[in-house]
C-alpha cells in the first residue's frame, strides 16, 4: 500500500494552452504574483490567483488536471474506496473554487493549501470526526503585494518535497503513513530532520508584521 516512488521533480511546468501565448504578461489584477518567463515554480499559484480574481475556468481546469488525481490518490491511500475518493476529490476541487479568496501565496503553496482541504474532507468523510481550528487571523490582502515572499514560499515548499524524497526509505514511509492517517497520535514521532526552519521563519516574520499592524 505504501510502495510509492520517491517524488521526482514536481510536475513539469504546466501552462494551460490558453495561456501559453500570454505567459510572459501574466501580472494578476491585484498584482500579487507575477509569472515571469522561465520561472515555473509559481505556476500553480498564478493559476489559482486567476481563479480567485477572475473566476477563470481555464485556469481552474489546469489546476484540476494536476491536483484532482493527487487528491484522489491521497484519499485512496487513506483508505477510501475509489468511488468515495473520486467523489471527495470533486468536492475538494469545488471548495478550491469557492474558497479561492482565502488563498494567500505568501503563506502556503497551492499543494499545501489543497492538502489542508483534502485532509479536512477526509476527517469528515472517513473518520466522521470534528477538528477544532485555530483562531482566524485578519491576514487580509496586504496593501503592498509581496511577490517575493510568495515566490520564496513556493520555492521552500519545493525544496521540502525534494528533501522528503531524499530521506531514507524507512523514515519517508513513516512520514507518509502519518499523513495518510495510518498512524494514531501515539504512534507519530516527528523527529523528521526535515528543513522546516525556513518556512517557519517566513511565517513567523509575516505574523510579526501582522501583529505590528494590529497593535
Amino acid at each position: 500500500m505504501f510502495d510509492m516512488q520517491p517524488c521526482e521533480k514536481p510536475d513539469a511546468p504546466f501552462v494551460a494552452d490558453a495561456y501559453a501565448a500570454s505567459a510572459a504578461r501574466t501580472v494578476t489584477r491585484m498584482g500579487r504574483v507575477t509569472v515571469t518567463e522561465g520561472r515555473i515554480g509559481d505556476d500553480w499559484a498564478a493559476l489559482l490567483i486567476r481563479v480567485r480574481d477572475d473566476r477563470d475556468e481555464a485556469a481552474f481546469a489546469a489546476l484540476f488536471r494536476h491536483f484532482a488525481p493527487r487528491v484522489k490518490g491521497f484519499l485512496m491511500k487513506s483508505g477510501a474506496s475509489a468511488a468515495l475518493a473520486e467523489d471527495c476529490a470533486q468536492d475538494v476541487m469545488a471548495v478550491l473554487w469557492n474558497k479561492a479568496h482565502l488563498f494567500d501565496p505568501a503563506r502556503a503553496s497551492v499543494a499545501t493549501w489543497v492538502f489542508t482541504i483534502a485532509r479536512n474532507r477526509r476527517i469528515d468523510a472517513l473518520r466522521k470526526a470534528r477538528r477544532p481550528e485555530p483562531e482566524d487571523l485578519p491576514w487580509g490582502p496586504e496593501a503592498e503585494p509581496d511577490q517575493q515572499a510568495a515566490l520564496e514560499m513556493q520555492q521552500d515548499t519545493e525544496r521540502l518535497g525534494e528533501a522528503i524524497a531524499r530521506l531514507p526509505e524507512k523514515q519517508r514511509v513513516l512520514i507518509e503513513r502519518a499523513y495518510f492517517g495510518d498512524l494514531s497520535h501515539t504512534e507519530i514521532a516527528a523527529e523528521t530532520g526535515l528543513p522546516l526552519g525556513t518556512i517557519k521563519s517566513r511565517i513567523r516574520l509575516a505574523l510579526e508584521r501582522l501583529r505590528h499592524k494590529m497593535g
Partner: protein
Amino acid sequence: MTMTIKHHISDALLMGYAAGQLPEAFSLVVATHLSLCDDCRARFAGYEAVGGAVMECAGAVAMSEHSLAATMARIRSAPAPVSRDAPRRMGIFPAPLAAMVGGGPEAVKWRSIGMGVRQAILPTENGARARLLHIAAGQKVPDHGHRGMELTLVLQGAFRDETDRFGPGDLEIADEDLHHQPIAEAGEDCICLAATDAPLRFNGLAARLAQPFLRI
C-alpha cells in the same frame, strides 16, 4: 497575545494535528494553544507543508472521464457558500474553545468536585476527553499519574508541579512517566483546559473512590 509562553506543543502533536489524526479533545487543546502562540503557528505551517509535499508525491489516480464537467456542474448548482462569521475569542477563551463552550468563561457550567476544584466536561467525541478546570488560588490538585497522555493548557493564573511553573498559554504534556501533584499559585484562581486519552491514576484513597463520579 503578548504573553510569554515557555511550554509549547511537541513536534509529534503538531504533526498529528497537521495530519488530522488527533482525537477531537486533543485537537481542541492544540487549536487553542495555536490561537495564543505565533511560534507554534509558524512551526505548524511547516507540518502542513509536509502534508502538501506528501500528497504531491503520493501518486496520482486518474479521475473519471467527465469529472471536470461534473465538478463544474457541482459548483454551478450549489448555492453560494454562506460565509459564516468566524468564531470569536471570548475573554480568556480563544475562538476554538469559545466555540466548543458556546461562550466565554461566564457560560461555563461548573460542577464542584471538592478540594477547591471545579470542572466542566466539554462535549467532544469519544476517544479522549476534554474538560475545563477551575482551581482555587493556592489549591493542590490530588496527586496523580497517567495511563495515557494528559495535555493541560493554562488560560488564567498559574500552577506548579515537580517539573516547572506553567503560566497563561503554557502547555504541559504529561505521559505515563510523569507522576505529579499540581498546585495553583497564590493570587489569581487557575483556569485550565485539559485533555486525556485515558483515565488518570490517583494515589490518594479518597480521590480514587471519587473518581467514577468525577469522570476524570
